[in-house]
């Protein structure tokens, strides 16, 4: 039976401190004669720091501490992490090695371009590849993550209409959309208009038509959508939006299910963001950093953030020109490690391999659906909306009947999976599905692991039928049992750092 490591590790800020740090400041003795002058100046101005409560710990203790914390963590290298819309695929190790081997760690972002032409050439080629994959004209690599790409896109749409002198303040977003879509639109000052999903699980075209007007600036859409279904009326959606002068924005979070098979540009999208850490195997890093690109076609290229990477036939250079550009989304050029890993990934797969990625990812999803049906789980973990349409990168299951029959929730199922050494899917999203479990295996999950995942789900359903109370006490095999989230969020018990009163009280627990 699987059991996760359980180390008793105090928060490092509460570690016992030595009198001095073991850290050696390079060349410290070269400058000691200037130290007194600095200290005096700070004292005179009353700026000198008195207290700094960071303990002095030996290197060994630090290493052990974080290695032990890693034992109590779970990533794709440990086991399946099939979080829907997160595209948790295995990242080939050579991508890390590629980054080291290319020697970019020491390259300063303000290095003169002529000294780093080969690096710029790689980034330029990557930009061209991403434009080809999306069917766009140009991409800007500066945006640090998908949501920042969305904000850039929303700002581009806003500025485009401002320049045209049109007052369009509405952004359409399907009710199945990622939360980032409405949040990004709102950040750019748009009023969000939700578009309902029809029985088939796609955008309700009639509802869309009903809200179209010259107030509408655009629509943010992901395709395949968050139910894992392809928006098969996409050409009509694009036509309708364009007919009132509005723009269509592609949320690239779900590109893995369609890459190389159909391109957003050919579907009628005007602006596209890509999540490089999802589609192209840059690691997720426990939440980040990711990597992204924002791409556009035609007249919208002018509005992309700057700089863009250009080639004049002789040299590669950052081009800052573009008076209609929305500006800069972050300093410098982008999350370069993620960009280079993406370069490596695409180079290893080629055009044929990228299509294969989408094919196998989609095949895996449909295999999971079929297996669930075969082992008789489809009654309690059921497909909503269309039951027969093939799913793409992900599938959403509803545990509604499970809850009704046994009082067991999607969250309970998630905890039951954790107990078997498996990372649970996304739960309670999309919001339009009750008790949702959203599963995305990606192309990298081997068949045996998918079978095991189904088997684990079967055990959970069996237990739900047999002993729902036991299920609500799960997990037991993880480093800790179920976390008390009510307490964690309670204003009286809230502990966000060691500076909250509750911290000392919790620290007492380590004495036992």
């Amino acid at each position, binding site marked *: 039976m699987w059991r996760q490591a359980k180390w008793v590790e105090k928060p490092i800020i509460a570690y016992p401190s030595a009198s001095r740090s073991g850290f050696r400041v390079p060349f410290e003795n070269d400058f000691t004669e200037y130290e007194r002058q600095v200290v005096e100046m700070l004292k005179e101005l009353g700026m000198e720091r008195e207290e*700094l409560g960071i303990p002095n710990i030996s290197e060994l203790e630090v290493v052990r501490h974080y290695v032990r914390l890693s034992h109590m963590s779970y990533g794709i290298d440990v086991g399946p992490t099939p*979080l829907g819309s997160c595209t948790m695929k295995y990242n080939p190790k050579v991508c890390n090695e590629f980054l080291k081997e290319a020697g970019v760690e020491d390259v300063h972002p303000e290095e003169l371009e002529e000294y780093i032409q080969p690096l710029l050439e790689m980034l330029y080629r990557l930009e061209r590849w991403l434009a080809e994959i999306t069917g766009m004209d140009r991409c800007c690599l500066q945006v640090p993550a998908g949501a920042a790409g969305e904000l850039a896109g929303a700002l581009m749409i806003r500025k485009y209409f401002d320049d045209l002198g049109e007052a369009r303040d509405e952004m359409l977003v399907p009710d199945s959309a990622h939360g980032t879509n409405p949040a990004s639109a709102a*950040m750019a000052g748009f009023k969000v208009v939700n578009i309902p999903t029809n029985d088939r699980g796609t955008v309700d075209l009639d509802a869309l038509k009903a809200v179209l007007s010259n107030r509408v600036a655009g629509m943010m859409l992901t395709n395949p959508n968050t139910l894992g279904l392809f928006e098969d009326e996409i050409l009509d959606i694009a036509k309708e939006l364009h007919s009132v002068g509005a723009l269509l924005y592609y949320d690239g979070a779900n590109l893995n299910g369609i890459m190389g098979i*159909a391109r957003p540009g050919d579907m009628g999208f005007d602006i596209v963001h890509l999540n490089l850490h999802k589609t192209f195997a840059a690691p997720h890093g426990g939440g980040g950093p990711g990597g992204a690109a924002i791409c556009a076609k035609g007249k919208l290229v002018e509005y992309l953030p700057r700089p863009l990477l250009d080639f004049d036939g002789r040299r590669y250079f950052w081009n800052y020109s573009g008076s209609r550009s929305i500006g800069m989304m972050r300093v410098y050029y982008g999350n370069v490690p993620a960009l280079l890993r993406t370069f490596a990934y695409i180079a290893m797969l080629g055009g044929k391999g990228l299509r294969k990625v989408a094919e196998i990812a989609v095949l895996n999803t449909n295999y999971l659906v079929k297996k669930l049906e075969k082992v008789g789980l489809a009654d309690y973990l059921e497909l909503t909306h269309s039951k027969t349409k093939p799913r793409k990168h992900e599938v959403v299951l509803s545990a509604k009947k499970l809850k009704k029959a046994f009082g067991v929730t999607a969250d309970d199922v998630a905890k039951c999976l954790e107990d078997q050494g498996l990372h649970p899917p996304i739960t309670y999203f999309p919001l339009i599905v009750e008790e949702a479990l959203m599963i995305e295996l990606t192309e990298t999950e081997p068949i045996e692991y998918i079978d095991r995942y189904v088997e684990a789900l079967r055990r959970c359903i069996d237990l739900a039928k047999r002993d729902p109370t036991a299920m609500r006490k799960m997990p037991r095999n993880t480093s800790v049992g179920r976390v008390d989230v009510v307490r964690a969020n309670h204003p009286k018990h809230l502990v966000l750092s060691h500076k909250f009163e509750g911290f000392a009280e919790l620290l007492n627990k380590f004495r036992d």
Partner: protein
Amino acid sequence: MEIPWAKNSDEAVKRRIMEEVGIASIEELFQDVPAEIRLKRTLRVGLSEDGEGVSEYELLRLAKRVRESISNPRIPPFAGIEHCYHVVPSVIKELIYRGELYTAYTPYAFEINQGLLQALFEYQSLIAELYGVEVVNASMYDGSTALAEAVRMAIRVTKRSKVLVSEGLSPLKLRVLETWLYGLGIKIERVGLDERGATSVEEAVKLVDRDTAALVVETPNVYGVIEHGVKALADACHEKGALLVVFANPLLLGIVKPPGELGADIVVGEGQPLGLGLFYGGATLGILGTRRDLKLVRQLPGRLVGMTLTEDGVDVSYALVLQTREQHIRRERATSNITTNSALMAIAAAMYLSLIGGEGLKRLALSIASRTLYLKTRLSDLDGVEVLYRNSPSFLKVATRVKGMSVENVIRRARERGILCGSNLSRYGYGDNVMVMCVTEAHSRSDIDELVKVLGEVLSHVEAS
């Protein structure tokens, strides 16, 4: 198998799966994609014309060629409007490649990811200690976007529409801020510097009014001057109900009173000096924190990790908390659209601070300030450059006005001699022919002497020609 790391891409395995699914062709899974948008050709990507990928070895050969043809300066660079060259301890280089950590997703499944959550809580605590606040979020993308989010937060909290920005804030961050505020009808006004190069308190007092959401200052500022009037600036803001946003270099806080203690309402920083390397500008880490005031905390963007107990009350445990501020729950009413952040870099920063310790950080900061002073002293003897704010307390950066040659030319000519000597501030409309140089723990005394020598050669060259 066709994809080396994906078993199901193997022809036989794939066939088996297709049989189970009940399809004869993969195409059947894409029948709902309209024929007119189906791509009828192979994507033109990758290194070979035929659409095939390359082997691991071929890829690494390419990387090696790139490395060998990148020409690095012969001593660590002195450039750095935003990022400067810092030392990365080996512990971090190795530990951030722990597979359980770097291949994990956001720890939404709390029980199975306690280690990750604890590391992020530790980051929050260490940074809270360093910046003198109680609350720090679990990271933003980088310093510039953290600053933009801080200002947006201040606008939400105060419901006001004017933002004052010190002329000491770097031009790149200003550009990012302007971009992130586009379309909101926010007015940005600048507050000038006093004769010592710090934000003018006098001017701030005049400009902060009842429409002001926030005043933004950076320390050390873009000229390297440590802002020494933070307390007075805070008072000026608070008197009118505005918030003070301080962007502070984390290393500086080893020797200087933290902004939180001096009255800053929101603290921001770039985590890159904390052992994250350069990587041509990213990925780095955005630091964002605030006072323990629910009015502020509720408007704080990004994830927060809370320390608590398990339901049975037995174990200390960690969870993501106050999630109703975030986009996946609150959608268009969320505090921000941020989801992917910079968690791994936050953990690296926590490792860094743990490794060097409070006492080590103090020595490190003092040593950097001493080097800054040394560089200033050396440059003062050099013809052709005028050290700006010569007698002000500086950290990390020294600003100079170059005479007789454009900064662009100085940088180019020094680079030809193997030195990346500084950044051209005037390129962004800051001052007249101003060059800023960045000196860190990576620079020895002889490195700095070499810099000064090369600058001397470059500048005397012009006189000769």
